[in-house]
C-alpha cells in the first residue's frame, strides 16, 4: 500500500546503516575534508530520521571511548578478543621498512634544485610522499620546507611536528634542520617536534645523527641516535633519554589521529588538545591541573575529554562562545 508506506519515515534499517558509515568516516577515518563535511551536512539535513539515527549511534560510540580505561598498560592484553596483541608496532614498522626499500633509488625529484613548502592548519594532518620513496607525515599546525640539490635532501622544520620515514641513500644525505640543531638520517624513522625554542626528536628505527646546525660550534659534539632515544634540546641545553617502545608509540599516536595519555596531568592533556583544535580548553582551578588521566582519545574529540572531565572527575564544565572552561 503506497499511501501507508508514504506515511512512514524512511526505512529505519537503511538509515541506520548510512548513519553508521557517516559516523565512522567522521570520527574514525584519518581524513575528514571540508567536502566531506558539506556532504555530511546535506545528508544530515535531508531527513530528521538521519539526524536521529546519527545522534543515537554517536552517543553510544562516544561513550565507548570510555572503554579505553580497560586498556592494560605495557603488558599485552590477555582478554580473549585480542590475544597476542603485543607486536603491532613491530609489524607496522616492518611494513614501512619494506615500502622504503622499494622506493629507494628513484629520486628524480631531487635531481634538480627545488624548494617546496608544506603546511598544515590546526587539527590537520598531511602525508607528503617524496619521489625517492621517503615519506613525511606532518602533524597539526606545522610548517616545513623541502629542498633538494647538490647539497642533498634538506627539510627545514619551521614549526610543529613531523614524522620522517627516510629512504636511505648514503650518497644523498637527508638532513632535517630545526633551528639550532639538525638531524642527519642514517637510514631511519624518526619524529621531530619544534615548539618555539624547544626541540624534541624521537628515534623509532635505524640510526640518525643529531648535531648543532652552527658549523663553527666545535663545542657541540654530534650524537648518534639509536631506536628508543629521545632528545630534548633548547638553544643552550640538551638532554638524551631512553623511551620504552610503548611510550614512543604513545607519543606518536597522532599519526593515527589519537592522543594517548598515560597518567598524564590534566594541564598537559589540555595543552595537547589545544594544539589540535581551534576550540580551546582552559583549566580555571590550578588545584585540578595535576589530576592525572589515562586514555586514548581522537585528537579532534574535545567532547570526549569534556565527558571524562564531567563524568569521571565530576568537574564543572562551562562553555562560553567556542571555548570550554573546566573548574572544580
Amino acid at each position, binding site marked *: 500500500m503506497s499511501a501507508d508506506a508514504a506515511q512512514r*519515515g524512511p526505512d529505519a534499517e537503511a538509515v541506520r546503516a548510512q548513519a553508521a558509515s557517516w559516523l565512522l568516516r567522521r570520527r574514525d577515518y584519518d581524513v575528514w575534508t571540508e567536502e566531506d563535511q558539506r556532504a555530511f551536512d546535506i545528508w544530515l539535513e535531508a531527513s530528521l530520521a538521519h539526524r536521529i539515527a546519527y545522534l543515537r549511534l554517536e552517543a553510544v560510540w562516544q561513550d565507548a571511548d570510555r572503554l579505553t580505561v580497560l*586498556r592494560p598498560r605495557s603488558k599485552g592484553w590477555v582478554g580473549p578478543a585480542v590475544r597476542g596483541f603485543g607486536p603491532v608496532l613491530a609489524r607496522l614498522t616492518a611494513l614501512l621498512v619494506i615500502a622504503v626499500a622499494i622506493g629507494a633509488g628513484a629520486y628524480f625529484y631531487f635531481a634538480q634544485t627545488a624548494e617546496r613548502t608544506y603546511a598544515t592548519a590546526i587539527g590537520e594532518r598531511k602525508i607528503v610522499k617524496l619521489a625517492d620513496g621517503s615519506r613525511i607525515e606532518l602533524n597539526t599546525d606545522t610548517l616545513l620546507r623541502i629542498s633538494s640539490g647538490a647539497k642533498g635532501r634538506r627539510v627545514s622544520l619551521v614549526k610543529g611536528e613531523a614524522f620522517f620515514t627516510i629512504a636511505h641513500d648514503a650518497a644523498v644525505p637527508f638532513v632535517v634542520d630545526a633551528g639550532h640543531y639538525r638531524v642527519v638520517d642514517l637510514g631511519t624513522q624518526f619524529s621531530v617536534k619544534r615548539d618555539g625554542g624547544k626541540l624534541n626528536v624521537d628515534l623509532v628505527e635505524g640510526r640518525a645523527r643529531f648535531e648543532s646546525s652552527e658549523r663553527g660550534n666545535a663545542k657541540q659534539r654530534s650524537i648518534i641516535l639509536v631506536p628508543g632515544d629521545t632528545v630534548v634540546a633548547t638553544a643552550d641545553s640538551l638532554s638524551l633519554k631512553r623511551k620504552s617502545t610503548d611510550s614512543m608509540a604513545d607519543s606518536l599516536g597522532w599519526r593515527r589521529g589519537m592522543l594517548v595519555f598515560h597518567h598524564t596531568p590534566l594541564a598537559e592533556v589540555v595543552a595537547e588538545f589545544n594544539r589540535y583544535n581551534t576550540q580551546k580548553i582552559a583549566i580555571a582551578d590550578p588545584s585540578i591541573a595535576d589530576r592525572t588521566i589515562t586514555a586514548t582519545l581522537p585528537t579532534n574529540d574535545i567532547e570526549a575529554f569534556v565527558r571524562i572531565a564531567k563524568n569521571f572527575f565530576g568537574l564543572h564544565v562551562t562553555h562560553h562562545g567556542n571555548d570550554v572552561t573546566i573548574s572544580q
Partner: protein
Amino acid sequence: MVDRSGTDFDETGWPQAGGGVSASEIDAWFVREVLPLEATLIQFLRRNSRNRSDVADLCQEVYMRAYEAAKERLPERTKPFVFAIARNLLIDRVKHEQIVPIETVADLDTLNIAIDEPGPDRVVMARDTLRRLQAALERLPQRSREAVVMRKIEGLSRSEIALRMGITEHTVNRHLTDGMCLLADLVYGEPTDTRGPT
C-alpha cells in the same frame, strides 16, 4: 508526507506557547532523556503493533515526531510525552489500515496503561554506561568485537586493524559499523533488568 494530525499531548499539558528551541538543545535532550526510554518504548510498540517486523520503523517514527514537537518547547516530562506520541502513532496507523480488525480497536483503549510502567532511570543509566557498554561489547559477534576492541580500547587506526585481522579496510568498516549499531541496540534497546554479562 507525515500525518501529524493525531499528535495531541493533552496528558502532558503540552503544547504551550513558547519560542523555538535550538538544535543542539534538542539533540542534548534527545540523547539524555528520550534514548534511555528506548527499551520500554520498543516493548510497548511490540505489544501493541500488529506487525512486529516494523517495530524499528515505528520507533524511528516516534523519535521523529518527538524531535519535531520538541522544536517548539522541550516537554517537562519526557516519558509521558514520548508515550503519548507512540500511542497516537499507533492509532494513526490503525485508522489508515483499510481493514481494521475488531480486536485491534479494542486493544487501543488499553494503551494508556503502559505509559505508567516504570522505565529505566536515566541517572542510574548514566552511571552504569560503562558497565552496560562492557556487557554489550561481550555480546557482539566475535569479529565485530575484535574490531571494536582494537579501535576503542587499543586506539588502533582502521588500517592497523585491517593489518592485524588480515582483512581489508572495507571489511573493517563493516565490522565497526555493525558493532556500532549493535552496541546502540544493546545499550538502549535492552530492558535494564536483563543487563549485565550473560
